[in-house]
């Protein structure tokens, strides 16, 4: 599935994206707040092959975002789809990518995908406690904190709060 919205494209990751994903996830700044990724392209390709099986069954969606200039600049993944709830994560931008508006658009599109296309009523996500700016950003949508474990804060955002607050965000990225 390819999503075209707000002048950006979200396309499913393919094996050929393995090197790029590793570059994103092993960057010294980016890797501080996400799960560890081995610097091994073959291992990443193997993971993508197994992901493609889950994608076929609509169990998981892992996208790479492409901007208006054709640059692949971010990833985002949706998984653990169960009844009316799913999980989102792997929101990682290309190191040094400065177009914040486009980064925020990916997050909004993924939440719209969860709520509007998959008909979820809630999305859950986890953020590292030290990732202050991402926590602040997510809080603009008024999620609830459901748990804190070690360095991780677990949030749940319901559809209603997303829809109420989405316009406030949109106004600021135009």
């Amino acid at each position, binding site marked *: 599935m390819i999503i075209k919205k707000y002048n950006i494209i979200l396309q499913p990751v393919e094996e050929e994206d393995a090197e790029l994903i590793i570059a994103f996830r092993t960057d010294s700044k980016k890797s501080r707040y996400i799960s560890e990724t081995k610097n091994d392209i073959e291992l990443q390709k193997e993971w993508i092959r197994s992901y493609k099986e889950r994608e076929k069954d609509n169990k998981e969606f892992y996208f790479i975002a492409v901007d208006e200039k054709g640059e692949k600049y971010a990833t985002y993944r949706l998984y653990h789809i169960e009844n009316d709830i799913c999980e989102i994560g792997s929101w990682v931008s290309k190191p040094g990518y*400065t177009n*914040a*508006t486009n*980064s*925020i658009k990916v997050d909004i599109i993924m939440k719209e995908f969860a709520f509007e296309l998959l008909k979820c009523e809630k999305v859950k996500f986890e953020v590292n406690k030290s990732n*202050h*700016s*991402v*926590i*602040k*950003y997510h*809080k*603009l949508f008024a999620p609830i904190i459901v748990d804190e474990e070690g360095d991780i804060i677990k949030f749940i955002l319901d559809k209603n709060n997303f829809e109420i607050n989405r316009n*406030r*965000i949109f*106004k*600021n*990225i135009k």
Partner: protein
Amino acid sequence: MNIQEFIFKFKSQLENDKFVVNPETDYVNSEFWDSLTNMVINVMLEDDYNVKLTQEELNSFSSVQELFDFVQKQQK
């Protein structure tokens, strides 16, 4: 509105008590400042002070005091 109240609100958006914010703080070049923080402060300015700025405009002030002065002028 006074500068201390403004700083209190500004600081409360940062999710981290360790950051020092005072009138002279060059927030754009501070370690806490990034595009998502810009977004959060912009939403605060709109919600609490009815001031609307673009990301670029918010990045153009050289200190918290300068931003505060601008916000105050907008409210008069």
